[in-house]
């Protein structure tokens, strides 16, 4: 089949960093050392016009802390008006009941709050912010009271992988219906702190076996994780239309100045959404093409699940080796 037939006409999701500024300095954050000009409200509206023209259905604001941009509500409102489905991830510090109501009123479809440990002191320490656990759980409650769908996001790491069932209970206690268990990425501070935070490949395998079994067993909470390295495990079903990492195939990332990268964890700019023709970037970028047609290298070359796994997470392989095609360092095979 022609390579172009396999890719969608445009991504389905843009993960959009409006600002790298943040009121926190978390140990695993990929973006604390990033510096980048921010665009004006008007320029962000122009971006939305491009996204709407390309019929991109979903945008998710991340960061940095999106609520540090005063015009977040206007930008989200404009995007909603243009037919996009808007969501965001926040650390919850600035999200009280008034803000929850404003988020709902400007059209947000869901808001995710990051909580990394069911233990308040562990979460606060990890996020280097005393009181952040309490503010985060209050944020979840405010969202629930406002009627806006809330989700919970946890980056799986050494501080929580043994007690992730307690994270599920925490989610239930705060009326969350979906929890994202993000795989640890070795980028930014996560790269610097990876010795302390990252699991060994064997620990990843054990964690994912339990997480897959739990996902299968429970029905009151949706557990979402998107980590291609689990393709070799029993119970892994292809819910995704693509094999391997979804970045560059289903999603792209926007930096605060309009630069496009395949994902927030791969610091390779493939173009600028306001300066370059979007379709040329999407269909012709050599970087995106390389990510879509990875070449099995190292142990992947003789691996029976390469077709599904595609070498695992491209961002992790790239962060640790500088080569998209190397095996994911989390791989236990």
């Amino acid at each position, binding site marked *: 089949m022609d390579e172009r037939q396999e890719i969608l*006409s445009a991504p389905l999701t843009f993960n959009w960093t409006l600002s790298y500024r943040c009121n926190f300095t978390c140990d695993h954050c990929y973006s604390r050392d990033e510096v980048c000009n921010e665009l004006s409200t008007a320029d962000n509206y122009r971006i939305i016009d491009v996204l709407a023209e390309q*019929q991109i259905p979903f945008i998710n604001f991340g960061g940095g802390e999106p609520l540090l941009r005063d015009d977040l509500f206007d930008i989200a409102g404009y995007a909603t008006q243009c037919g996009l489905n808007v969501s965001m991830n926040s650390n919850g510090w600035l999200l009280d009941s008034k803000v929850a109501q404003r988020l709902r009123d400007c059209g947000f479809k869901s808001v995710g709050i990051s909580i990394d440990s069911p233990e308040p002191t562990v979460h606060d320490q990890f996020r280097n912010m005393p009181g952040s656990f309490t503010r985060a759980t209050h944020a979840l409650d405010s969202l629930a009271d406002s009627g806006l769908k809330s989700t919970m996001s946890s980056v799986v790491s050494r501080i929580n992988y043994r007690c992730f069932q307690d994270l599920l209970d925490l989610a239930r206690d705060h009326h969350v219906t979906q929890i994202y268990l993000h795989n640890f990425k070795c980028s930014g501070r996560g790269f610097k702190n990876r010795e302390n935070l990252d699991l060994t490949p064997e620990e990843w395998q054990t964690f994912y076996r339990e997480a897959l079994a739990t996902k299968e067993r429970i029905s009151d909470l949706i557990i979402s994780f998107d980590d291609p390295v689990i393709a070799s495990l029993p119970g892994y079903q292809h819910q995704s239309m693509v094999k391997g990492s979804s970045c560059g195939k289903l999603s792209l990332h926007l930096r605060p100045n309009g630069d496009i990268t395949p994902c927030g964890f791969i610091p390779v700019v493939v173009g600028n959404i306001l300066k370059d023709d979007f379709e040329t970037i999407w269909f012709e970028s050599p970087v995106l093409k390389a990510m879509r047609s990875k070449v099995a290298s190292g142990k992947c070359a003789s691996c029976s699940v390469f077709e599904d796994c595609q070498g695992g997470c491209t961002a992790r392989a790239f962060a640790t080796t500088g080569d998209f095609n190397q095996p994911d360092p989390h791989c236990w095979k």
Partner: protein
Amino acid sequence: MKKPLRNQEIVWRIEKRRQSEALDALEAGRDVDELGTVTLIQAGVMHQLNLVGGMVWERCDGHRTVEDIVDDLAGEFDVERGVLKNDVEIFINDLLQKGWLTDG
């Protein structure tokens, strides 16, 4: 008469480039059944419809009857009307059962 309507919770999009590729392939006499031309996202899960399915889906706007949809498509495809009608009905009934369409 039934006027099928798309479930408003489902986010969908026509894959423009793939749709035109499928039309070209059809013109050239190739089989296009496996090529997804409409993407649907329902409860976070993605699905794809092929050319004919996608064209039916596009027309399920709650205003057109199944007959109207068949009439519309009969102009696009070189198939006997009875066969087309049967295929469209099976497809629509399947989606009604899944809850992706309602009887508008």
